Structures are given as structure tokens and as C-alpha cells.
């Protein structure tokens, strides 16, 4: 089952990337829990309605990642969501391959959601105009993570995603984006990002 991104999920990923241009960043992709068990689940895309930005800087340490996964998992259960994937933007501009951290976290997610995907941000194509999608999506096949072609179909509505993301980048909304690191620095910082979510809704 390939994943599909909503405008909110896509734009928050890019805002996180833009907020810390000199750091690696990562986060979780959130999907709605499907109520019916489809007999033939293949071909039906999993819609990632949101993302939770996690960390910036050093991504390879375990304790805070475990805390985040636990808290966010609980939040998901309360809101009928499920953690469906993982995104990462590497530190260097020309480096967009998933590394050991990405594979480890994704493996953890796969324990609860077998179709989990890794979404890597291609830093070298990050522009304010967002003229093309700049993510590379990896699925787990036969013990390897393979990248899949990203098309307009990988988005719920690409032109809406493009319009909203571009507007928020120009308006420097990323200055207000909260990730889990920011939350740990000050508990009042809300990693569900209600302010940004509202901005996205207003632009829809």
C-alpha cells in the first residue's frame, strides 16, 4: 500500500526542514486508523494526514526518541491515528539517502504498521516556490528499502500542497514550527502545532 501525503503533512515536513537548514531533522508521519479491514489492501493508498516533527541536530541517540515514540503513540490512540511512516532530511545538501537511524526507526514503526514508509527530503531541490515535490519515498520490499517514483498521485492534492507550502515558506512560518526538541526545551511548546495547522486550514 503506497502512502499519500496531505498538504498539512507535506508542508509541515518542509517547514521543519527549512527551520533548521544547518541540521538534520526527522519526524513521524501520521495516518488515520482505517476502520474496515479491506480484504485486498493492495493498491489502496494510506493517507498521511499529518506529521509530528521530532528532532533537529543529533538524531542518533535513543532515549528521547523512545520518549517521543511513546507519547506520540498514546496521542495517536486517543485520536484514532496511527504512526504510518518516518521522514528525515539529512544535514548535508546533497545527501538524501536513508541512513541507519532512518532504517532503525522505520523498523520500529513497521512493528505496528506493516506498510510503514520512509520519506526522505531532497534538500538540494528545496525552493520557496515548491515547483516540484521534493520527497523520495522508500518502501520495504524483501528486506530492503527501495525508492518508489513520486508522482502527483503521491499527494492528496499536489497543487494545494504546493500553494500552501510555498505561502508558508515565504511567510517564514517555520519560525513558529514546534518539534519535539522544542517541547523538551519548554513543555509549553505544543508539538501538535495547532497554530501552523490553522494556517494550513486557512489557506485551503
Amino acid at each position: 500500500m503506497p502512502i499519500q501525503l496531505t498538504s498539512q503533512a507535506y508542508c509541515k515536513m518542509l517547514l521543519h526542514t527549512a527551520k533548521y537548514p544547518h541540521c538534520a531533522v526527522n519526524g513521524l508521519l501520521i495516518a488515520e486508523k482505517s476502520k474496515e479491514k479491506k480484504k485486498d489492501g493492495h493498491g489502496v493508498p494510506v493517507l498521511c494526514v499529518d506529521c509530528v516533527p521530532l528532532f533537529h541536530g543529533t538524531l542518533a541517540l535513543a532515549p528521547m526518541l523512545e520518549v517521543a515514540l511513546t507519547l506520540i503513540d498514546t496521542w495517536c490512540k486517543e485520536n484514532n491515528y496511527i504512526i504510518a511512516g518516518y521522514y528525515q532530511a539529512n544535514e548535508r545538501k546533497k545527501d538524501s539517502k536513508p541512513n541507519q537511524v532512518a532504517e532503525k526507526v522505520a523498523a520500529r514503526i513497521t512493528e505496528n504498521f506493516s506498510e510503514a514508509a520512509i520519506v526522505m527530503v531532497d534538500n538540494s531541490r528545496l525552493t520557496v516556490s515548491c515547483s516540484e515535490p521534493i520527497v523520495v519515498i522508500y518502501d520495504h520490499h524483501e528486506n530492503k528499502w527501495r525508492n518508489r517514483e513520486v508522482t502527483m498521485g503521491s499527494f492528496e492534492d499536489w497543487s494545494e500542497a504546493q500553494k500552501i507550502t510555498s505561502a508558508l515558506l515565504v511567510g517564514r512560518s517555520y519560525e513558529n514550527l514546534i518539534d519535539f526538541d522544542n517541547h523538551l526545551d519548554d513543555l509549553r511548546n505544543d508539538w501538535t502545532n495547532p497554530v501552523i495547522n490553522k494556517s494550513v486550514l486557512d489557506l485551503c
Partner: protein
Amino acid sequence: MASVSELYDVGWEEMRDKLRKWREDNSRNSEQIVDVGEELISDHASKLGDDVWIIYEQVMIAALDCSRDDLALTCLQELRKQFPDSHRVKRLTGMRLEALERYDEANKHYDAILEDDPTNTAARKRKISILKAQGKNGEAIRELNEYLEQFVGDQEAWHELSELYINEHDYGKAAFCLEELMMTNPHNHLYCEQYAEVKYTQGGLENLELSRKYFSQALRLNNRNMRALFGLYMSASHIAASPKVSAKVKKDNIKYAAWAANQINRAYKVSICKQHSDILKTTSFT
């Protein structure tokens, strides 16, 4: 586009003080520095006195971060005019070349500085940064180790090395670097907490117990360090759950974990983050 002084209703002195604060904190908020600094320089340079040169340097580096080569060059040229033979300015020239990805030329600049002054630490560190930018982490680590043999007190370098080791998943060596930092900065809660995180990541019962001790130490040094509090909870919980520990150790760690969970809940209640304090009640924490 409104100016910074209009938007935030600040005068030039406040802008100058803000830039100084950012210098002292070593913050990398380059977009803000460019916004404030560019206006300060163009409208109030004459009022800044000797501060203007350090501000040119600060704004130049921030401009490089924001791909504002025009602004960077302006600042660089002012600095070159004022300090024609300065190694410090030469280093800035090198940094501009790095930003333009002209790494070979940048290296030549730094080599020229080092020929003239082999003890110039800034040039050596820039060369290591180039290796890092090129993805040559192994070489960067080697060079940084060599550098630290000579300049053993350079804390920024020890910290950089610990980060490089963490990115290479060499947690043992990262821990060693943080041990150096803790020895020379025994009151720094951040180093304690990072060391604890590295030990936790290394795994195994002994490392978990060490990690719990250092999370506790970090908390003693700063009882508002949330990472240390969460870390204490996680490490104590894992130790208590381990089949290899004695009944007493298990009991003690359950106590520590419970205390930490209590403190976490209190911290959330106080923080008005109601949504999350509710979540904690239903999480496996309590």
C-alpha cells in the same frame, strides 16, 4: 517591506544589543541576524564605533548562511579595507569560498594562513569543516583527533568530535569526548545529560545504570532539565524490567522511576500544556 525597527518598534541601540546577545550565545539564527544586522549597518554604521567591525564579521557569516553573497561581500570588503593583513579576515574570505563550494581554493587560503602561523586554530578547524561538508566524516574525525592532541583544551572541538562519533554510531568514543568535557565543566548539566544519552544508547545493563546516574547528576545540576528527568524515568524503568538485576536493585529502580514519573506529571501540570498532561496519565509511564 517594513524595516526591522518599524516592525518591532526598536531603536538602533536595541538592535546593536540584540546582535551582541546573539554573539555571546553563539546562536545560529542567521536570518534574524541578517535582518537586524543589515539594517543596522546601512542606517547606523557611524554610531556603532569600534563595534562595527565585529558586527560586520557576525553579519557576514550569517549572510553566508542565507546565501546572501552580496551582503557577505560588502561586509568582507569593509573588513579587508580596515584590516588588510589580518588572518582573521583571511579566514572569512575562506569561509565565503566554502559557502560557494569552492573548497580547493578555500583550503589554499587556510594553508597559507597555517604556513604563516602554524598555531592558527581557526584555519585548522575550517579545514576540518570542509571535510565534514564533503561528507568525509572519517577523515574529519582523524584530523580532529590530531588537532585535539595539540589543543587539548578546545571544548568546542571536543564537542564537535563527540557529535561526529555519534553520527558514526561510535558511542564509546563519543562518551570519551563527553567525559573530557564533564571533567573540565563539572557544573554543566547539558554535558552530563548528553553523556547519559550516549550511555543509554550504547545499551547493556552497566551502561544503563551509568546513564541513570548521569541523568540524576544532570537533574541535580539543573532540576528543570526535562531530558534528564525523562531519561531518569526511562533508564530506571529499563533497569527495573531487566531479568538480570537483584530484587533490591529492581525495587530501588522502581522507586526512582516512580519519583521521576511524578515529577514529569507535575511539570506538565504547571506548564499549562493540558493536552499532554492528559496523555501522560494514559501512557505506560505511570
